[in-house]
């Protein structure tokens, strides 16, 4: 599973990455992480706000912090 965190490196983005890593560890799944900070690459996704979470090239959430249950749901389904 490829997980991308989109965001310019602000506090919220780092927090999202941390939450996602915790969720991945909890589920015990294989996933590689990428933190995308370049604005051009971020804008290639259909989002206007960061932080955003992209799982296997699908945008799951943008502009807000998902709750742990939401995260677990996406990672299980993905």
């Amino acid at each position, binding site marked *: 599973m490829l997980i991308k965190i989109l965001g310019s490196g*602000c506090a919220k*983005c780092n927090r999202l990455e941390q939450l996602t890593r915790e969720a991945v560890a909890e589920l015990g799944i294989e996933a590689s992480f990428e933190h995308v900070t370049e*604005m051009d690459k971020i*804008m290639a996704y*259909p*989002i*206007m706000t960061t932080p955003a979470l992209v799982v296997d090239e699908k945008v799951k959430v943008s502009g807000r912090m998902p*709750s742990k249950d939401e995260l677990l749901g996406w990672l299980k389904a993905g």
Partner: protein
Amino acid sequence: MDWMITALQGGMASLASYLAAHVLLCLVPAFFIAGALSALVPQQSIIRFLGPDASKWVSYPAAAGAGSLLAVCSCTIQPLFAGIYKKGAGLGPAVTFLFFAPAANILALAYTGVALGADFAIARIVLALSFGIGIGMIMAALYREGDVARLADVETFAAGGGIPGRTLLFLGALVALLIAGTLKLDFLTAGLLHVEMPWSGAAAVQAGLDQLVPVNEAAGAEGLSLQGLILIGLLGAISVFAWKGLGQVDNGFNRLTPVALALTALTLAFAALGMRVTDTGVLLTVTGRTLAVSALCLAIWPLARRFDGWDVQQWLWETWRFVKQIFPLLVVGVFLVGIIRVFIQPEWIRSIAGANTVLANMAGVVFGVFMYFPTLVEVPIAKMFLSLGMHPGPLIAYLMADPELSLQSILITAAIIGKLKAWTYVGLVALFSTLAGLTYGAWVDGTSLLILAPGVIGFVALIVTSLHLIERGRQATRKE
């Protein structure tokens, strides 16, 4: 040695007046509002109006709305600006958004209102709004040709829901708290109940404080009152409890969360209390403001309970993040401003910007462009200039230019929209800030609003109509 003591006292005086009751009553609710805007307002509720097909009657006001509601955090400004420009409504609204955001966010507005006066806050928002839209439209007209190749992706602007009613109600209560704490209205300031607390040591403590931080009304130094000292103590206590209570609230509420919140409410209520040291003790005055602030603090509790636990956690976490990010910078900035204040001769400021001239306004703008101050520190700097005799006109010119234009923001803008457009934008902002200063200065100098308001409205209307006509002309030629 004497000058060092004077300088340090200047810094302390500046800090003391910053931590005084009226500033806390404005900044503390403003931080909570900023947190709520960031955590609870669904961004899609405004972004959906900024799509590529939105008419400019919708997209420009929506861009301004996004500037004041969504852009409280720097994480939002850059992607939103790039997004509006590259995928959405285009260069014009993107520029309006960029221009309006730093002047109209709740923290800047509330702090300006308390430190410099409500008229400065109102002037800042009105001028930023009208000129922000004006600059956006000029930019859109200038670069119309290069602005057609935009990615059209519908998904980005999918209509989400609006802002839920409970969020509006919650924000309304927080704004009411901010207003009740700051407005100088008779029914808020009138004393309802006086309580005299006998404490013989009070006068001695106040005398000691006066020696440490002398009151100097000419320089705008308010000194440090006993109430101020207690408030600083309370703030210290809040920061100790909030470090864990609010800073780690996203892992679930912990035991310190309610303690930190209760202390915050207590601090607000105490700040709203009138307190005067007399010969025999301390005279406490319960005012309308005390009651209003206490009642609103209590009312926020049931309103917050209507949200999911997760949303409330996000709200508190965001609020604390803003405090952590901005408050230390402000404290240091305010202290340094107080020290610098001691060394600047009022004559220098008065000779450069003491009157509302074109040159003085341009000086304000130039100072704003070349100096970069962290968020909100422009306000104490402006306050210092005001007390040194700067004319309100050039001051507004400075206040408009400083947060909009710094070398850093110019570089970021250039990376997104290109160098030529970025420098055009810089030129326009400099021009319009000078105009804004001149307008406000003329109003302060007594030019009637009846002459100025039609002037400003006419100027903006002129831009809007002429650009509208140019565009219609272009569309007509394209059809032929």
